[in-house]
């Protein structure tokens, strides 16, 4: 019953989803909120933001990590890892995978991370400063750093194959999925990919201030307005997603419960140095991802934008999209207007959102945007979801410092038509 293999390697399919988002703590809650235009952005509660120039965030309100993470693991990990551990449990359950039944050295983990376990690190540094070095916990050595989540997922689920972390700010989530696909094509059966972030401590927010890209506003409906004439920065958010990736042959061999779709194409580029006179390379990344997927631009049904929320960067993204699809040539959306900027958590969550859009035939909205900025000639899906057959989606990610990534995602229905079975 396996699909007829063409020249290339077996398609890489998504067989399990796990979500931890400010507007939903599992896949279906997140998706229902997203379609309903329900935002998770509100005044910061994790600490008193009164003295800071940033008042709003997409927080996972009243999240109790102990509901999801055993106490032993809770003590040695930071919030970003708590979110990943929870999302990974959901994704593995969704995929109905029993890792112990698979060869452990053919199971991998690739996550992305941008902000580290900063709230954990801040707590320990406060102990160092106020009480002395004897009061810095031993887990300071492992909990904060970028690879902590990948390591803990590997240990917890005995995934002993390729493990790695990608650090590329908000393009990293797509890069982790791209890297997972590469690993599967080499010699693995199943890879956990994605990323989660939580920078919800004063140090985590203050560290972003020098970029000047955070919105100073206090009205949650007017703070994060990508592609809007009134764009004034982004709102920080926490959360992200973990996905189960398998090559299709392995998924079929173990009798995978479901396939959400295929990671059909991926590419990443890096911008020229500022002042070089050469153009940014987001467009190039998108074109390379389309070429990698063998999909002409005309077959893309929706673009999930990176959506910085800063006039110049929005215009650059709009120009990249317009250069490929023409003015108003393809529906564009940014559901992250309901979560805030999730950094390395964004790519995985956007890919999941694209797969759900394909499953249900509906494009989720970009909320709060009222007037598209001059130069942004985009068919932005605003206010309400748009019913629409979604066969293939393009997901874009950009990371602070010049990173660009693009991913082409094909929904399961389309995959079934092309592959002949599913």
């Amino acid at each position, binding site marked *: 019953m396996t699909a007829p293999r063409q020249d290339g390697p077996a398609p890489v399919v998504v067989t399990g989803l796990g979500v931890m988002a400010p507007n939903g703590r599992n896949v279906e809650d997140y998706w229902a909120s997203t379609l309903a235009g329900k935002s998770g952005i509100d005044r910061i509660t994790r600490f008193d933001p009164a003295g800071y120039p940033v008042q709003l965030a997409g927080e996972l309100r009243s999240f109790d990590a102990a509901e999801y993470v*055993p*106490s*032993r693991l809770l*003590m*040695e990990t930071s919030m970003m890892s708590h979110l990943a551990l929870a999302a990974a449990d959901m994704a593995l359950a969704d995929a109905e995978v029993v890792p112990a039944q698979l060869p452990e050295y053919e199971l991998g983990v690739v996550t992305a991370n941008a902000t580290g376990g900063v709230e954990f690190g801040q707590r320990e540094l406060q102990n160092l400063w106020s009480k002395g070095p004897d009061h810095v916990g031993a887990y300071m050595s492992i909990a904060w750093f970028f690879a902590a989540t990948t390591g803990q997922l590997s240990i917890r689920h005995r995934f002993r194959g390729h493990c790695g972390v990608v650090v590329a700010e908000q393009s990293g989530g797509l890069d982790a999925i791209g890297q997972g696909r590469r690993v599967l094509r080499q010699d693995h059966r199943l890879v956990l990919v994605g990323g989660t972030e939580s920078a919800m401590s004063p140090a985590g927010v203050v560290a972003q201030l020098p970029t000047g890209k955070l919105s100073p506003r206090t009205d949650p409906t007017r703070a994060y307005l990508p592609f809007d004439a009134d764009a004034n920065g982004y709102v920080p958010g926490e959360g992200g997603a973990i996905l189960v990736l398998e090559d299709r042959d392995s998924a079929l061999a173990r009798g995978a419960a479901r396939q959400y779709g295929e990671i059909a194409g991926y590419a990443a580029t890096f911008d020229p140095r500022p002042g070089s006179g050469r153009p940014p390379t987001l467009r190039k990344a998108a074109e390379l991802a389309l070429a990698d997927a063998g999909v002409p631009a005309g077959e893309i049904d929706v673009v999930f934008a990176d959506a910085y929320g800063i006039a110049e960067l929005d215009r650059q993204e709009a120009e990249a999209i317009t250069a490929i699809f023409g003015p108003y040539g393809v529906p564009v959306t940014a559901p992250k207007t309901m979560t805030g900027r999730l950094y390395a958590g964004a790519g995985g969550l956007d890919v999941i959102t694209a797969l759900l859009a394909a499953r249900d035939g509906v494009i989720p909205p970009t909320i709060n945007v009222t007037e598209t900025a001059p130069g942004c000639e985009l068919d932005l899906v605003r206010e309400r979801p748009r019913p629409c057959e979604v066969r293939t989606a393009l997901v874009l990610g950009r990371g602070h410092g010049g990173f660009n990534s693009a991913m082409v995602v094909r929904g399961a229905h389309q995959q079934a038509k092309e592959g002949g079975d599913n």
Partner: protein
Amino acid sequence: MSEFTEHDLRRLIRISVGVDDSVDLDSDILDVPFTELGYDSLAVLEVAGRIEKEFPVSIPDDDVADLETPRKTIDYVNSKLASTA
């Protein structure tokens, strides 16, 4: 504060490194290696740090590797307490 007891160790383990779901810390664990209880060397280091904060002992990092079981830990701490008394 004359003695470091089994009860003290259990209490400090719970608050500093937590307990694996599969482990009953209240059972007879005195001679069970920490590794079998789900505690790696970093966890034992963390517990040692917690002991140092409550009891007047110093536990050099080099000695932590020898604290392989709860009993060895209790005996080690009590011998230190006795020598400084």
